């Protein structure tokens, strides 16, 4: 079995984000980066499946991004990936989900992967489109937002998280692509010896030009922080007056007293 796991490196979510110079992305210059959280679930699930199948499947890790992306790739390799493909692209953030998915599909087409894992979405752009577009371009089955995964004899049983707390179960025949949601598993910590051994694993390097020349379908017009909210309303004066005013506001502007 050949497994592909697509990962993205995103800023640590505790960072303070500022729009960049042309206001189409965030300023990356002073940020710490890590693997996208949802992609950690994807890597973990792939490694668990490999373990379930006695180590037979080969796991390829793919990531698109600049030089620094290698750190996230190495983490995926330390967690149990076998080899990696790094699509070196300093302008990755200017590409829309269609272009990103086209590059991945273009690479995956010739490789004959049986199963592709991706995160449900990235923590920075959050489009949640790349996985499903890749599946569509490859013409393979797809299930999104997995919170449960099992595999038996060529069939995946995927427990999906739907709106309003409802869960659904889908069965997919390979080849297939699944996108992974919080709650699917607990990603392992890469052990230190495995971090060091990952140095010796193959990381093939490709350029976007070798893969796809698709034009963008959506362009980012602007990125901006949310407008600062007002300081709220402070009621003053006698308690009785404050209560009357509060009652009035609640009646007028909310449904709580109706």
């Amino acid at each position, binding site marked *: 079995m050949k497994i592909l796991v697509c990962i993205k490196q995103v800023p640590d979510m505790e960072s303070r984000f500022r729009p960049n110079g042309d206001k189409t992305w965030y300023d990356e210059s002073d940020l710490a980066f*890590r693997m996208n959280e949802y992609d950690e679930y994807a890597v973990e699930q792939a490694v668990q499946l490999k373990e379930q199948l006695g180590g037979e499947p080969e796991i390829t890790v793919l990531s698109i991004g600049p030089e620094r992306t*290698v*750190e996230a790739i*190495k*983490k995926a390799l*330390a967690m149990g990936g076998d080899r990696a493909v790094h699509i070196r692209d300093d302008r990755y953030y200017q590409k829309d989900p269609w272009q990103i998915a086209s590059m991945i599909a273009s690479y995956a087409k010739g490789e004959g992967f049986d199963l592709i894992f991706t995160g449900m979405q990235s923590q920075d752009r959050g489009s949640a489109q790349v996985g499903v577009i890749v599946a569509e371009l490859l013409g393979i089955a797809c299930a999104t937002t997995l919170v449960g995964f099992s595999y038996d004899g060529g069939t995946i049983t995927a427990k999906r998280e739907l709106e309003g707390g409802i869960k659904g179960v889908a069965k997919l025949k390979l080849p297939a692509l699944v996108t992974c949601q919080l709650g699917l598993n607990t990603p392992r*910590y*890469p*052990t*230190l*010896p*495995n*971090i*060091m051994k*990952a*140095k010796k694993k193959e990381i093939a390097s490709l350029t976007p030009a070798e893969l796809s020349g698709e034009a963008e379908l959506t362009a980012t017009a602007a990125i901006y922080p949310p407008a600062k909210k007002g300081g709220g309303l402070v009621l003053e004066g006698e308690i009785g007056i404050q209560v009357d005013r509060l009652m009035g506001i609640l009646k007028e502007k909310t449904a709580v007293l109706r």
Partner: protein
Amino acid sequence: MFLELTEEQKLIQETARNFARSVLEPLAPKLDREGDHPAFLANLKKLAELGFMGLNVQGEYGGSEAGVVAFSVAMTEIARACASTAVTVSVNNMVCEVIQAIGSQEQKEKYIPRICSGAYAAGSFALTETGAGSDPAGMTTTAVLDGDSWVLNGSKIFITSAPYAGVFVVWAVTDKEAPKGKGISCFLVEQGTPGLVIGKQEEKTGQHASATNELVFDNCRIPKDALMGKLNDGFRIAVAELGGGRIGIGSLALGIGLAAMDYATRYSTERVQFGQKISSFQATQWKIADSYTELEAARLLLMNAAFRKESGRPFAKEASMAKLFATEAANRACYNAVQMLGGYGYTADFPVERYARDVRITSIYEGTSEIQRVIIAREILKNIG
């Protein structure tokens, strides 16, 4: 000049940080106040399984081969969450390294994997005696060869991890007639050896979960091949290995100092007095500026010492400078953190009082600040005239 961690070092730092935050930090207040020995040992086992007990140890003995810089950043992250766990990890690494440096092939294969894998919760470093603290060459514990065994008599004090260590690296006088420091040898003594008595556990100011005990050797008989390294060459080894331990303790202190300042700085942006956040007062800002500046300087000194050791260059002076500065800067940072929290900083409802207690020992153990200055001056002066 390139002041960036490698990808591997960053991943090790991230692993240490994530583990420390999610596993060690929630338990640390309980370990400090009431203790939870099984949970403490269980976390040490998990850290061993992740590879934190032999960061600078070869893979063939179960080590991680990650190097000294990785050791330093890992120690800092672990200590941000739990100083008791951090000191145990630091000493375990030092014990592995001393066995790797001078042990026989058999000793290395027998003991290092047990510490690295967590089969032994800990290893202990038994040098200090009641009458031999800053002056370890003044030790009086003796080892006398009797047929096929060495017989140890005497006592050690302040031995980290003694009740749960699987093996002790013990220094003893093997030639009483030799000049001071020239007649000391190093031995490996297994837990449970008859005549090895784990004595009183100290009631310390901080780092409560890490046990610190007296050891008594009462005609303790160990095999002849328990001698480690060359006969009468032990003191030189102890001095050399303590250099590496100092990088560990300096890194640990840095972690406590950062934890204290991070907490106090966040607090200062929420605490209101005189109608404004106390972070708006210059008195608070100077504490923040001074402490973070000193902690950053400490970090760079530690990185330099670690990098020199990793590169196989002399590092005794740099390790002492880093240990001296980092532990004193961390003490000042914890003092400032308590001050910033005011009365709350002196209560157990906030973590900074624990940081302030945990940090105090760092400028004492693994060589006091005074001894670090002696070493630094000696290293500088020996190159002049």
